[in-house]
């Protein structure tokens, strides 16, 4: 990765962080409704993994999807517009926070049913292999999702058919309020791959450079030999979604992880290795502030869907 790419990645992580902070604010103001799951704390995983993909590689994830969308190249404007339910949102205001997607960016969506997108990833990869494409499918999911049948069915089939899927488990220690060890028989998630004879690895998900190194290795394997499970150990700094009373964890624990802020770690690396100085990075932070302001402005000025939109995009042709 050259120096310029590093700055781009730094910019992206800060953008995701500020976008989430702004989304929380707009939620409090009642401008965003429904469920809102923020990605704060996990930025190094999404940015790190997706920075290793080729344009033809597909990405699919769960409902905690704003950061993934940004990493796939969606603009903050379009993300914000979807959060506000506007026609200019990627899903025309019909999907909301949990359902961002842009086929043109090879981003196949945020999906709200836990585990349900893993079989979809199997199918995406199957289509690529079937059609002789070299593309890989990158599928991200939470620790909680590894306890549902979908996960096991999908890992198994991807292995039996040697499909090019990179399975990324974002182990943020909790599925809602349930700690990994209270729900999963093995707390080192990557070991679940062993039952399917699938190669696997575990990486520090707070350090974007380690995430990138592990992803590059894993993708090499995926392109040549089939599926691989990479577990990224991370943490969500905020509640599961807005309004989570967080009774299931101690604030000391949260603070301990916050000391390992993925953006802080990367920033420190850039400065200590004389790649960029404080002033340059601060200027980058400032640019992000502007982008966010503009995104909110764009979203707020965008039109709401017309009533007729209710009946659009359900079937190929509108039915009576």
């Amino acid at each position, binding site marked *: 990765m050259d120096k310029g790419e590093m700055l781009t990645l730094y910019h992206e992580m800060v953008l995701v962080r500020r976008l989430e902070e702004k989304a929380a604010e707009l939620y409090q103001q009642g401008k965003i409704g429904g469920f809102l799951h923020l990605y704060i704390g996990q930025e190094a995983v999404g940015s790190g993994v997706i920075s290793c993909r080729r344009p033809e590689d597909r990405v699919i994830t769960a409902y905690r999807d704003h950061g993934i969308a940004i990493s796939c190249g969606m603009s903050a404007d379009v993300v914000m517009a979807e959060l506000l339910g506007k026609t200019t949102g990627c899903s025309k205001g019909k999907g909301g926070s949990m359902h961002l997607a842009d086929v043109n960016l090879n981003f196949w969506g945020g999906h*709200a049913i836990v585990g349900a997108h893993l079989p979809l990833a199997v199918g995406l990869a199957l289509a690529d292999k079937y059609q002789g494409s070299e593309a890989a499918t990158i599928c991200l999911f939470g620790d909680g999702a590894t306890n549902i049948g979908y996960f096991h069915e999908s890992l198994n089939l991807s292995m039996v058919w040697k499909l090019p899927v990179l399975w990324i488990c974002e182990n943020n220690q909790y599925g809602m*309020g349930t700690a990994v060890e209270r729900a999963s028989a093995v707390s080192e998630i990557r070991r679940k791959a062993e039952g399917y004879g699938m190669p696997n690895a575990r990486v520090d998900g707070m350090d974007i450079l380690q995430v990138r190194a592990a992803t590059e290795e894993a993708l090499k394997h995926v392109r040549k030999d089939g599926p691989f499970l990479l577990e990224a150990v991370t943490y969500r700094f905020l509640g599961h979604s807005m309004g989570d009373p967080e009774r299931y964890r101690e604030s000391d624990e949260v603070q301990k992880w916050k000391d390992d802020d993925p953006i802080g770690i990367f920033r420190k690396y850039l400065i200590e290795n004389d790649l960029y100085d404080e002033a340059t990075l601060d200027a980058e932070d400032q640019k992000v502030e502007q982008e966010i302001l503009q995104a909110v402005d764009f979203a707020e000025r965008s039109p709401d869907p017309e009533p007729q939109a209710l009946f659009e995009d359900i079937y190929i042709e509108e039915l009576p």
Partner: protein
Amino acid sequence: MTVMTMRQAISQALWEEMEQDERVFIMGEEVGLWGGTYAVTKGFYDHFGPERVRDTPIAEGVIVGAANGAAMAGLRPVAELMTINFAFLAMDQIVNHSAKLRSMFGGQFTIPVVIRAVGGGGRQLGATHSQTPDVVFAHFPGLKVVAPGTPSDAKGLLKAAIRTDDPVMFIEHATLYQTRGEVPDEEYLEPIGVSKVQRQGNDVTIVTYSKMLQVSLLAADQLAQDGVEVEIVDLRSLRPLDMDPVMESFRRTNRCVIVEEGWSSYGVGAEVAARLYEEAFDYADAPIRRVAQKEVPLPYNRELEQLALPQVDDVIRAVKEVL
């Protein structure tokens, strides 16, 4: 009588049944430490302990499946699905097992399981998280399907559901938890499979249940100001379906509107109207009308979602059409 919310009423029913019967236990996602995502089981974990208030992994198939198994072996599980939308991941257990294990084995097994699930739209949760698929479950012989619309019914019906030896799908509505109503202070049960007249009138019969009972009551208040007296029959159970109060009312009013939150195709309105036409065709003075959700997956955008859901005005309009 004490005025309380639907949430409190449901919580009390669970609490009382657990106090009375050691075999009753709760299992589901976030029911314990978290206290239930809708705070229905708040305080249960501390009081009854982790053996009887069991947090499960996110795995709906085994939540319902293990509840079926435990029920076969003599326990009385209350399996909680975080929302009814996730019941689709447990559909095989509900449909092929809860509903059939008894008859398929010649009555050898009893399945005293309660599956609690909350559904309903109106909270901008998007297409997969906003459904009201109650009739899907009511389709299957072998299941009982209960969906209360008031706190006192919720409490009495849930207690009855826990005590019956048949599998019961107990469907709550996410936007009713704050609804308040009077609840008797003494112990009581409400019978499953008995409809109830919730408002008396002689001009039009409204047949409804769950959240749409509250919407229909609001519509009835407004119609009364125009001199129209609506009778409201609350089905409370979709299976078994008690048509007696509906028939009695329809024979008097000769006009009927059926109000449900789900889609109308193959729905509650279709079922009730068919039975009315089959058994009381001669009493109809106007075509029976159905009020239901527009036939679309619910969108996230607030205005669009509200447009798709049945509103008080839709009920008023339908009543005026049959007058």
